[in-house]
């Protein structure tokens, strides 16, 4: 008997007697060929008690520099938003934390109604009529949308903007190879998808045209123009796919009003922790025509035998456990608990709060971009509108070294784009804002960048305030 097993020696003896064997090993030996039945233990350390394990995990946590330890301007797909206290409390409730997929609806009304409410919230957010109950996360959600497009039109080419997250592009490439689809990447021009190259890449063999909003470099794309051009070149059967940061839908034209057929995205920004990249959730919403090809669980409203309102998993004939090799997806376990965080967060922000938050982000982002770009040695990588994140260039600067310099002073200035784009953006820096980053922190970051640049140049330091005021911005 160890940690979490409940069987005492006395229990075991009685149970073995009931089974009619003399030992557990005999029970196993009856079933497993002798050559495969191990007697030597696994080569793993002995188990340890709770407090020792806790101390070890605390040591591991302590060897990480988290957003608790530094003021971070890192984003690039996941963002340090504030997670309200009610989310910890509600997600910690046994009734949400410990059941599985609601296969027995009579005792799963809580989870099913959460799914229904989540679907409503995502549908509102995206201005698209149908949402599923979640997929894994952002990049694989884009690949799932591509698979839906393949099922819808059978075409073999995926056209995707280079403004998609690099992990999205890589995931799409990997999974499209499985689907038997070819991926064509359309370059950016001036920070946004090149409209001419986009139109030229799309034709009647194009299954889906995929754009990210805002794009990886923070630029707000003219999605309506891109979708119109895509339908023009690819015909009605083409599926337009948009990968969105849901927070920005407080201020940006929603996908349903911008010609998008399938809107997906990374849900981390909606009440989920950073968790070094997961678990979070992916959302997946679409026009009615795609309902019966959606991946994943969908909750629907119905009534019980007494006429009482209730919810069930519905349209299950799409799914793997019914349709097997003809299923619209292989997804089974998705991200229900993370989606719960998402719907609670959206309720907490509320109808007025989401636009307020999105505008706040846009204003602070604008200020940060203007302030940082005013620093001697810093340029804008593009001048497209931005609402939560922006890209800079620091010509001649070793950006990773600059990041380390600033980190040593308690700030993380953002992602060195050399990590994701190599030589293409060797001097690029991607800076993200959340409501947790104040004006004072932005100003301090500017000072630190000035210092870091000066340190690399081996020269003195210029005041960012002075530089900013030269550009007509009150610092």
């Amino acid at each position, binding site marked *: 008997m160890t940690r979490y097993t409940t069987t005492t020696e006395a229990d075991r003896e009685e149970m073995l007697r009931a089974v009619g064997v003399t030992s557990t090993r005999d029970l196993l030996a009856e079933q497993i060929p002798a050559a495969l039945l191990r007697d030597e233990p696994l080569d793993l350390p002995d188990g340890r008690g709770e407090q020792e394990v806790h101390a070890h995990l605390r040591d591991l946590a302590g060897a990480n520099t988290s957003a608790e330890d530094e003021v971070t301007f890192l984003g690039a797909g996941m963002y340090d938003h504030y997670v309200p206290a009610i989310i910890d409390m509600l997600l910690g409730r046994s009734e949400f934390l410990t059941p599985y997929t609601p296969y027995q609806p009579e005792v799963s009304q809580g989870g099913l109604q959460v799914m229904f409410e989540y679907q409503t919230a995502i549908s509102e957010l995206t201005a698209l009529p149908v949402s599923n109950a979640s997929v894994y996360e952002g990049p694989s959600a884009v690949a799932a949308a591509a698979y839906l497009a393949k099922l819808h039109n059978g075409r073999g080419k995926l056209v995707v903007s280079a403004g998609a997250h690099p992990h999205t592009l890589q995931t799409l490439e990997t999974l499209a190879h499985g689907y038997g689809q070819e991926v064509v990447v359309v370059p950016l021009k001036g920070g946004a998808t090149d409209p001419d190259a986009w139109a030229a890449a799309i034709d009647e063999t194009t299954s889906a045209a995929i754009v990210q909003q805002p794009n990886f470099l923070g630029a707000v794309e003219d999605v309506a123009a891109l979708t119109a051009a895509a339908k023009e070149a690819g015909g009605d059967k083409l599926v337009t796919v948009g990968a969105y940061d849901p927070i920005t839908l407080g201020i940006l034209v929603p996908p349903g009003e911008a010609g998008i057929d399938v809107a997906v995205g990374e849900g981390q920004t909606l009440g989920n922790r950073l968790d070094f990249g997961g678990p979070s959730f992916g959302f997946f919403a679409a026009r009615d025509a795609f309902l019966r090809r959606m991946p994943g669980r969908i909750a629907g409203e119905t009534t019980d035998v007494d006429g009482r309102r209730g919810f069930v998993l519905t349209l299950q004939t799409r799914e793997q456990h019914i349709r097997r090799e003809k299923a619209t997806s292989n*997804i089974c376990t998705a991200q229900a608990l993370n989606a719960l965080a998402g719907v609670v967060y959206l309720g907490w922000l*509320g109808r007025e709060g989401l636009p307020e938050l999105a505008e706040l982000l846009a204003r602070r982002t604008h200020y940060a971009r203007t302030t940082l770009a005013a620093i001697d040695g810093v340029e804008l990588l593009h001048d497209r*509108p931005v609402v939560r994140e922006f890209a800079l260039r620091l010509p001649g600067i070793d950006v990773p070294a600059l990041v380390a310099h600033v980190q040593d002073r308690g700030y993380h200035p953002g992602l060195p784009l050399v990590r994701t784009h190599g030589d293409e953006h060797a001097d690029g820096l991607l800076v993200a804002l959340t409501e947790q980053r104040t004006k004072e922190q932005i100003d301090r970051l500017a000072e630190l960048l000035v210092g870091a640049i000066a340190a690399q140049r081996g020269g003195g330091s210029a005041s960012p305030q002075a530089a900013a005021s030269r550009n007509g911005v009150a610092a």
Partner: protein
Amino acid sequence: MSTPVDVPTPVTAEPVLPAAGGADPRPLAAPTTSVNPIQRDHATTIFEKGAPGRRSFVAPDAGVPEADLDEILPAGLRRTAPARLPQVTEGEIVRHYVRLSRRNFDLDTGFYPLGSCTMKHNPRLHERVTALPGHARLHPFQEPERAQGALELMWGLERQLAEVSGLPHVCLQPSAGSHGELAGVLLARAYHEARGETRTKVLTPDTAHGTNPATVTMAGLEVVKVATNPDGGVDLDDLRAKADDDTALLMLTNPNTLGIFDPNIQEIASIVHGVGGVLYYDGANLNAIMGITRPGDMGFDIVHFNLHKSFTQPHGGGGPGSGPIAVSDRVAPFLPLPVIRRDDAPAPGTRTGPSGAAFSLVEDATALPEGAPGSRSIGKLRGFQGNYGCFVRSYTYITSLGAAGLRDASETAVLNANYLLAKLEEHGVRELLPLAFGTRCMHEFVLSGGPLKRELGVKTLDVAKRLLDHGFHPPTVYFPLLVDEALLIEPVETEARETLDAFALVLAEILREAKDDPTIAQNAPYSTPVRRLDEAGAAKRPVLRQPLD
């Protein structure tokens, strides 16, 4: 609202259980007849609550110099009408979701023998350590030198999973079991393609999880079904007939979804390897064999783990999960990126994990030596490194249990399943609900409800619904598909003997009751927040969101 106004029905109609022919004075395990009024709430969504002007979030002042919004973002790119989200206070949100939560059955409250899902206790230490800010607030793009604890943990979990599976190379990235399957099939495909072969066939036994064939299609390959023999294992003649030089791989769960360990596994491996195919192990049932036997030793090339099953994650109402894979040397070059590298002798001044070793992430296949894991990578399967929060929990679990604890967990799971089987025999349950195959089982077993349906007109679904009235979550029902009216029961190692005893008694009682009056089970449940729901109607006229004004 689209549904009629619901008048909560007072639940006085709970049928009195027949007293087992009057012969058995033992008090019945009481059905949950007392209904909590909260659980009988009329369902009202958060969107139907609140009022204009109510709110929880207070936006901080932007605190930056005023700028014209049109200058920041042209009007043509801006949203004109806000999303119609709820307008509620924090108090309303908390009450709403707490009341909703009480309409769920959960593992902390009761026995949950859902076959193939391994609903074992979720230790709360795992939640505490995962919530430590050094884990929970760690950004996935943090410079790897400043995420040494996370990388050391992931490297450690990789080594733990390699040892449990008997396969040397691990990739943690896939998000769930089915995602791991997709990774595995793509790996097998890449392996063959690298040898200049295009193999299209994937052999899957008819006992396979539905995710197996669905995955095969998504990976661009073709499912070929293999029959099951009368003992519940793979039909070797059928396998020999179907395995050929077009076979890319065989996907197998062992023990399979009947709870049967295939005694011919070595022969199966030799048949598949003999035609040049790859062997894929669906790890959904790994909880039967941890420390007892290993997929790598059975001859498998690729394994996926369900961390949320064998290595105890809270199932979250349907996720998150996590589906790492382990592979043999010959498949390793194709593993997804990034790979984690460990340097045991870092240069002085290098940041390290608590062990003193330094860890790095390799994102670029060309930076890896030929033949090394990831050097001919299939690419990425998702963003970032995977569901790290799940890694923390499973690493904590394996570290807590150690080698002996893992083996004890699996041995106890097997003993519990066989004990429950014996108790069901003792109570006569197996006359109407016979074991579908064999006489023993590993960690789970399948009963067939065929005789019960034929003799009493009571279906497996009815038994499941009646179990709800007794406070038990039902087993997995109607799976595997080859068993008539299947009940797949997995009692797991963290359940006490007395719980198994009670469950056996209740099943016996349900059958006794059904003999007297089958309508009781046929109309169950009675005590739940709602009773049987119109699923056909829900699919015919889908209402998938709350209509709003």
